[in-house]
């Protein structure tokens, strides 16, 4: 690992002052930059791999403000402090009852140890598991080196994305919670050098395909302080279905985050998120449009699943994800429609 300076932060504004990332560099390797250290489960790993090369870490875990790790509820919805641990949110009884999709997406992510370490804000910004991104021996990676190409296009691309990709990058967004978060139309509150602002989840991540090297719209020095999920009648009747190569402790081959507002078989508002298949946290507006306002049955679910993957771009080893993704979504829709909520 390359040398870096270390600075414990005393407040969010202290942390913001201490970071000094250059414009446009916040999502690259952090070369020459100072970056935030929260749970460290992605950052320290990537620094050991020499993929991330920050010259300074600002430790935000030393901020004594309890609000930064609080989980609270109001008529407006759910508010999660960005430093709350994944395990704390997954185990929260109210989250389990009111937002089952969120609790399940967190429980099925990583291991118990990683969930005890990783912060919610950091989890949302988790980097791709593309093996060509993670191994600096590969020269071609537009995420690491803009313009260098994409080794995954002709390489081992079984777990790569089929939506929101291009010939520049087919890296998959690996997160589970991020998929549920975008489906529920969450937003993040950030504090930065120019003050505070709110970013909608749909506008936070940039797709691997269109923007390989800059992954989010966060500006240099901006620090996520809270994650907010609006209230909605659909949130209670929701679930996160994750299909993977082994039963536990594995990234999604395909996943579906589904929330339905439903009365005597008829759908009202519908939310569909898809994980393991896209170059960013993916909300399928196409599937939602097919479902919204209709009488629910398996044929309709199948039509929605086909619409969700109509634009899929398949590669040598990941073509199976189109059908797997469709089946995953159909099963999730059937399961959630059968829930008592």
């Amino acid at each position: 690992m390359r040398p870096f300076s270390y600075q414990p932060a005393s407040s969010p504004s202290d942390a913001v002052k201490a970071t000094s990332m250059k414009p446009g560099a916040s999502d690259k390797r952090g070369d020459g930059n100072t970056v935030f250290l929260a749970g460290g489960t992605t950052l320290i790993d990537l620094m050991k791999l020499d993929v991330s090369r920050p010259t300074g870490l600002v430790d935000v875990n030393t901020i004594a403000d309890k609000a930064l790790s609080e989980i609270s509820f109001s008529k407006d919805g759910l508010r999660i402090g960005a430093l709350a641990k994944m395990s704390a949110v997954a185990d929260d009884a109210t989250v389990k009852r009111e937002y089952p999709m969120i609790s399940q997406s967190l429980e099925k992510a990583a291991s118990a140890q990683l969930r005890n370490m990783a912060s919610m804000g950091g989890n949302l910004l988790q980097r791709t598991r593309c093996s060509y991104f993670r191994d600096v021996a590969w020269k071609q990676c537009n995420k690491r080196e803009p313009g260098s190409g994409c080794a995954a296009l002709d390489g081992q691309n079984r777990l790569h994305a089929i939506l929101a990709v291009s010939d520049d990058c087919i890296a998959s967004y690996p997160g589970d919670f991020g998929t549920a978060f975008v489906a529920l139309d969450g937003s993040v509150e950030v504090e930065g050098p120019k003050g505070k602002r709110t970013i909608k989840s749909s506008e936070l991540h940039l797709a691997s395909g269109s923007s390989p090297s800059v992954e989010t719209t966060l500006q240099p020095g901006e620090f996520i302080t809270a994650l907010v999920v609006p209230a909605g009648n659909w949130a209670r009747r929701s679930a996160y279905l994750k299909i993977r190569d082994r039963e536990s402790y594995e990234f999604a081959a395909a996943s579906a985050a589904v929330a339905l507002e439903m009365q005597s078989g008829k759908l009202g508002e519908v939310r569909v998120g898809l994980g393991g298949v896209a170059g960013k946290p993916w909300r399928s507006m196409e599937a939602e449009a097919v479902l919204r306002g209709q009488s629910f049955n398996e044929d309709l679910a199948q039509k929605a699943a086909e619409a969700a993957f109509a634009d899929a771009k398949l590669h040598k080893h990941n073509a199976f994800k189109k059908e797997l993704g469709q089946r995953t979504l159909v099963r999730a829709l059937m399961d959630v429609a059968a829930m008592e909520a």
Partner: protein
Amino acid sequence: MNDSTRSPFFTRRNFLSRGAAAAAAPVFAEALVGAAPAQAQASSAIPPGPAIPMSLVVNGQKRNFAADIRTSLLDAVREKVRLTGSKKGCDHGQCGACTMHVDGKRVLSCLTLAISVGDKPVTTIEGLAKGDELHPMQQAFVDHDALQCGYCTPGQIMSAVACVNEGHAKSDSEIREYMSGNICRCAAYPNIVAAVNQAKSQMKRS
């Protein structure tokens, strides 16, 4: 559509040769950019450089030592505090062999910077027994032969103790799910589940 159903995966041979060719090429053309411009800082940063004084509270004892800022909690405990029970497996947070408790919670010490732990209490496998009396989980691993080579065992036991304390050991399937972050290449999993089941009732009594 493409021909994924017909085409074989890379063979090990051609995958490795591609990797070697890529590794032989110049790794990065880009020069590292210079240090960021100085900004007003409210708290002060510890610069990179020679070893700096640190301390950890391990198994109830405060230990002072000097180490590089980059030192992981795992390396600090093994090489500075000289407690080598915790094991380094993957060193990337994937295997669980390095599991310790920090502030009562199980974490991966390989992905934790020692300097970030501060005065939070750290418990390692050496901190479980009371003198010669093994912790119920240690005894259960012995009773059920829940290991073969033993390398993953300290991490398994630290994780298992936390699993029970968290209330995530109610059924075999729940134990398997909440122990899935600890990999055992000898596949002693059925015996580990049996050990956790035995220890969980004894831990309640003690």
